[in-house]
């Protein structure tokens, strides 16, 4: 308390002894006294994990047309067929368009989207598959699809190379083999690149290794952000678009099961983003292009824009575990969520709390399996 009275905004002449100085000093002491620990308002919303430091209210996911909780496990395997040579062909239809998206409760962003959602569909396939993307631009600006992966320059989806930008009302077929296996991404590469990315044109591109990965509960998390006032700085940060959504609805997981997160950073304007898990450590596979972890036993990793990787870990004890960018500013601007780790017998309850069903559970646990891919 006492250091408040000798504040750096010290009163000129304090201590000279004149009454006015005493007036100032006693007013200041009154202010300092008021900052007792018991005076702080305790959150009326006791369910909120971060006390009062949260976005207020709920987003209308039905109006947006997508729920970030469901996007976590929404793998898109495409239309599957077999080519004459025996190669698996996966065909996707993806359209770009203009859409208003409620990115945080009450804040509406004039977004550009792939298939009406941010992030766009999670394209999932196995290494060596033929990928065919029927891309149509229903938007008001030229767009492209630029994939991270091996492909020829005509399929690169950048302005001025091959077909280049796809104008509004036009379409193009991107075709290439899925290679190498890993956790990748795609995004629009039309000019100006910055705006085409931060307006929402991006998605995950996951190539499973031929031998598959260990069965696990899998989630895809795209770390993104939105510059709502177009000042080249973001107002809302999140994973899968909606700020603080997973803080309000903790992600249900079972204690002891293997968790795998495909983590991708697409945040514009800020040079780095990060992921920090509370109470536990994880193995990290940078870009997911190796079968052995590139980092073991870490609890925080850092990603620049376009960087991505795979996280694997198990929860040791039941409870609520926070995960967030260890860039505190992003955390408090929406990029913070919770895992709700429960014993298997309590899992049904946890699903209900997160407003998801058994189908969500199935998608989460069978993501990389053969059954799922032939769905």
């Amino acid at each position: 308390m006492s250091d408040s009275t000798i504040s750096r905004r010290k009163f000129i002449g304090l201590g000279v002894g004149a009454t006015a100085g005493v007036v100032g000093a006693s007013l200041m002491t009154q202010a300092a006294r008021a900052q007792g620990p018991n005076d702080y308002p305790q959150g009326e919303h006791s369910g909120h994990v971060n006390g009062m430091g949260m976005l207020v209210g709920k987003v209308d996911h039905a109006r947006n047309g997508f729920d970030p909780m469901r996007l976590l496990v929404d793998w898109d395997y495409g239309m599957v067929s077999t080519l004459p040579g025996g190669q698996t062909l996966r065909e996707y239809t993806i359209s770009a368009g203009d859409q208003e998206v409620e990115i945080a409760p009450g804040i509406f962003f004039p977004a550009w989207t792939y298939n009406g959602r941010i992030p766009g569909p999670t394209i999932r396939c196995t290494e060596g598959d033929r990928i065919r993307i029927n891309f149509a631009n229903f938007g008001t600006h030229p767009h492209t699809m630029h994939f991270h992966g091996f492909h020829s320059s005509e399929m690169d989806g950048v302005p001025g190379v091959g077909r280049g930008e796809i104008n509004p009302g036009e379409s193009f077929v991107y075709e290439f083999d899925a290679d190498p296996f890993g956790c990748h991404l795609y995004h629009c590469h039309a000019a100006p690149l910055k705006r085409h990315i931060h307006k929402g044109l991006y998605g995950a591109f996951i190539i499973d290794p031929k031998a598959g990965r260990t069965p696990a509960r899998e989630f895809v998390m795209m770390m993104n952000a939105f510059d709502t006032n177009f000042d080249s700085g973001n107002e809302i940060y999140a994973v899968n678009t909606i700020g603080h959504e997973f803080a309000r609805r903790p992600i249900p997981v079972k204690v002891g099961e293997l968790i795998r997160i495909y983590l991708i950073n697409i945040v514009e304007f800020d040079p780095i983003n990060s992921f920090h898990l509370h109470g536990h450590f994880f193995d990290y596979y940078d870009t997911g292009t190796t079968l052995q972890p590139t980092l073991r036993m870490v609890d925080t990793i850092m990603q620049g824009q376009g960087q991505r990787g795979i996280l694997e870990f198990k929860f040791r004890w039941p409870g609520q575990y926070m995960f967030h960018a260890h860039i505190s500013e992003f955390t408090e601007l929406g990029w913070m969520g919770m895992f709700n780790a429960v014993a298997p017998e309590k899992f049904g309850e946890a699903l209900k709390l997160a407003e998801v069903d058994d189908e969500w559970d199935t998608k989460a646990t069978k993501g990389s399996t053969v059954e799922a891919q032939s769905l």
Partner: protein
Amino acid sequence: MSTQTTTATPTEPKHLSGAAWALALVPLLLLGAMLSYLVATGGGLTQLASPPVEKVSVQRVSLPKAGIISVEVVNDGPQEVTIPQVRVDDAYFMFKAEPSNTIPRLGRAVFTINYPWVAAESHTISLITSLGVTFDHQIEAAVQSPLPSLSLFAQFGLVGLYVGIVPIFLGVLWYPFMRRLSSGAMNFILALTVGLLVFLALGTWLDANEFAQDLPTFWQGIPMVIFIGLITLGSLIAVSSVRGGRESTPLGISYRIALGIGLHNLGEGLAIGAAFATGKAALGTFLILGFTLHNITEGVGIAAPIVRQNPGLKHFVLLVLLAGGPAIFGTWLGGFAFDPVLATIFLAVGIGAILQVVWEVGKLVAKDSARLGKPTINWLTLSGLGAGLAIMYLTAFLVKF
């Protein structure tokens, strides 16, 4: 035309008939119809529709207790605005909005934010609209807003006393000295009073504009200051003319000087109280001392016109209270219930009042100069004017920062 006006005087009806009133209603009825058409159909201007413009301004920020920031917001944009989220120092924090976070045009709302502000440090509040537009407001140094209490009331009163009553009382104490001065020296003192008043008029004008610029756009702050100042000046001149062209009595002039200075000191008190309440200034001894020195000349100005005619102790007490008392009232108002609109109006009235006494004291100077057989502007009056301006200007060094 000119020949007709003299011959055919139009008849002046004594009462307006019902039919005449009905005629007056015709344009209003048509206006109503036009407005309904525009509201209902858009008036065929749909092609001109542009993206919505959102604009709000922060009127007042207070820190009523630890962990709470209260922000009063006025919508001075062209249409309704919703503020779904509020950030403090780049972090979203929970809040309540009264009456609603949707604010109609010209409407206001108070946002109570649950933020653990830190005493003496700076915080930035950012309001974000439903379209993602942000409006920032900075708290320069967080200080708990003074809550009305008897002791605080008394302390603010004391500040007003030091800034207003004491210096004017001390200035008026020169009265016996001034009575012993020669007519020439007295003319100098009157000219000095004019200089002092000109300085005050200018200072009040600048202060008024400072408040006016921060008002929500629809108030049109600066025109408001000019018009209120002019209306006050005109009214005071009209009031003094009511006396049927008789000369203003010296005591009357003193009262009007006291009134003008009082309004100026009210503004000074408001600024001091508000600066303290918003953490913008510390009420240091040095500052109070500065105001006391700065304002002491005001007492001289009030006493100058009545040198030849002692009005008695009662009038002196009233004059000092009229000129100095408002500083106390202003400090209370500024500290406990600061209202920038009210502050602007008070200061604008002050400008008019001071300009009017500049005119009256100026006439006294002219009359005295004539009696001494000199032109109004001579080296004596000019140096008096200069001395008045210089004293005010130099003592202002103590209070401007």
